[in-house]
């Protein structure tokens, strides 16, 4: 992206010189276009609304999981194939907390929030160790990063099986969140609404942190040009550890959301979701948070529409979206410059 900066005299203030960065609206229109197209294809308003809400919910959960991964990649150029482990960890911690809360007679929505907090803490702690042991020695070596994080994924998955057993564990929702509301003849599940709200809150918090705080400024600057931030005297490694831990915590939160969404948890959950989040961050542009958001919504909507219209092609719908978008914008929807 080149921005033409008109040359003026030195005394003019910088704000006057720099033109306001243009916001790229086309991807948003794409999401709306997909919804509109689906409206035409489905025909019935109530099923369209149900599917759209379901799709947006799924998209928001995927966004929560994928946002950490894309930030880590953008900041440090580290592609973490082991991200799925944190998702699985979050989901499994949730099963333990829910059982425990059930025994203590503390059911309901409160236990769900406690489960989220504990899962985030656990994932953050494991993420910190993971960064130390697995990732730190292989900075800047892509090939080794892929191999080593894959190895970390294998070990993590086996350790999870060791702790929680290899079998599928049911993760039922608390009583208060079961069932759905009928709004204009469309069934909106209560849990999905809650998950959407959490997803939106995460997106809001991330956007605010990234655009309105000094920490966010540094992270964005690091994504743009790492060595420059280092040269200005900031310890980008520490920043990176913080982002990695935060990303892991988000993955843990996403794991809880995803586990309740599926209502059951298996050790392979991480591998399965990994595929989805890779598609999402490729669509969005590696390193871009907004792109990740749009990509997640696209993937979530597409999966639901395609699953309703033509279940056979539902498998390929996500890959088809990715191929189409990469043909149009080879670097993803919101390319991070200088890469």
């Amino acid at each position, binding site marked *: 992206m080149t921005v033409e900066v008109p040359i003026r005299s030195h005394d003019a203030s910088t704000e006057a010189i720099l033109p306001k960065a243009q916001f790229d609206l086309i991807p948003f229109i794409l999401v709306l276009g997909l919804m509109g197209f689906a409206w035409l294809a489905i025909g019935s308003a109530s099923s369209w609304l149900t599917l759209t809400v379901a799709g947006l919910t799924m998209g928001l959960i995927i966004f929560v999981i994928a946002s950490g991964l894309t930030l880590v990649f953008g900041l440090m150029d580290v592609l973490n194939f082991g991200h799925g482990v944190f998702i699985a960890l979050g989901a499994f911690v949730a099963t333990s907390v829910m059982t425990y809360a059930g025994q203590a007679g503390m059911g309901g929505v409160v236990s769900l929030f406690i489960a989220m907090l504990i899962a985030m803490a656990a994932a953050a702690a494991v993420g910190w160790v993971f960064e130390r042991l697995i990732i730190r020695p292989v900075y800047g070596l*892509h090939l080794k990063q892929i191999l080593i994080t894959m190895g970390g994924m294998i070990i993590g998955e086996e350790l999870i099986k060791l702790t929680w057993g290899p079998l599928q564990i049911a993760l039922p929702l608390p009583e208060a969140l079961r069932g759905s509301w009928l709004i204009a003849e469309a069934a909106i599940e209560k849990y999905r609404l809650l998950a959407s709200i959490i997803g939106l809150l995460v997106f809001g918090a991330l956007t605010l942190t990234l655009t309105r705080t000094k920490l966010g400024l540094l992270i964005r600057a690091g994504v743009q040009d790492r060595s420059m931030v280092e040269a200005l005297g900031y310890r980008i490694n520490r920043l990176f550890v913080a982002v990695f831990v935060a990303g892991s915590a988000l993955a843990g939160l996403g794991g809880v959301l995803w586990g309740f969404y599926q209502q059951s948890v298996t050790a392979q959950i991480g591998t399965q979701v990994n595929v989805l989040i*890779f598609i999402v961050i490729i669509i969005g542009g590696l390193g871009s948070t907004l792109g990740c958001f749009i990509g997640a919504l696209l993937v979530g909507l597409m999966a639901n529409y395609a699953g309703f219209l033509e279940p056979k092609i539902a498998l390929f719908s996500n890959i088809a979206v990715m191929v189409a978008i990469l043909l149009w914008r080879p670097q993803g929807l919101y390319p991070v410059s200088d890469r």
Partner: protein
Amino acid sequence: MMRRLFSEDFPESRWLSAALLLIAVLLALAPFLFAGAKAMSVAAKILIFILLVASYDLLLGYTGIVSFAHTMFFGIGAYGVAIASIRFGESWSALAVGLALALALSSLLSLSIGLFSLRVRAIFFAMITLAVASAFQTLASQLSDITGGEDGLTFKNPQWLSPSFEPFETAVLGLLIDGKALCYWLIYIVVAFMFFALLRIVNSPFGRVLQAIRENDFRAEALGYRTVVYRTLSNLLSALFATVAGALLAVWLRYVGPDTTLSFEIMLDVLLIVVIGGMGTLYGAVIGSALFVVAQHYLQDLLALAARALAGKPLLADLVNPDRWLLWLGLLFVLSVYYFPSGIVGRLRDARTKANKRVT
């Protein structure tokens, strides 16, 4: 003659040569030496994995790109042979047609994936292949009319390769040679031929360019080599060799199913073997496959014994549970990426060069 055969890329270590020779001889004589059906299937699996892993090494070790779709091509080969054998009845021509169609499909897929994702950034490739492979796996289990779904397909081989075929009246060297043994030697010959072909490829000028790209793609591009083209070709070649390996597996098992060919576990096995055996040396594939497959079949029995012995102690018994052997392999994998990036073969070769330096 030997120079031509090995493309002047000799093992270059006495221990390595001895090990390779031992493996080659043992595998060649396996039908005479090991009577049991389990031992024979282990030997055949080693052979097939040698080809599969060597073809993957062309991509990972020589070109430096990570693909997670290698089992997809492996599966295409297996399914191609199986489906053709069922549709056209068991015959050599059915095998040939199946293999040809599978090769065509593999080249089409690998070319399109390669041109599509390698064009942008090599790192996309790992993610996109992961996505495509998982979609393909789901597709194979969904299209149950063609692929038999989760149950897979059972088919018959041409008469010569079926277990009931016995060409000789009497036993040869104490073995009544049957179609199963012939099938085994067919696999042996094909794998040996393919292995030397791969050795030829990696030691050709083309192979040197691949290694240059692995070391520094920017520089290779600056020297005038079109890295996209070379990477795509490398991907294509490795996919074709994997397809052949898949066809061999199907012929050996007379069965094909998603778990035996397409599953992600096999992909992980291949990755582990390449890294532990030694990236960037085809001999690593031989040593690694032999060790790994033997360990997979016999070490698990050993672990089971240990688990029974430790049955009283809860955590320890779980740790040595045979189902958890991937945990130990994963640890070995991570450690070898850190400390022995050139694997077993690299270690053996290093030992030799050090010894030489001491002499001079």
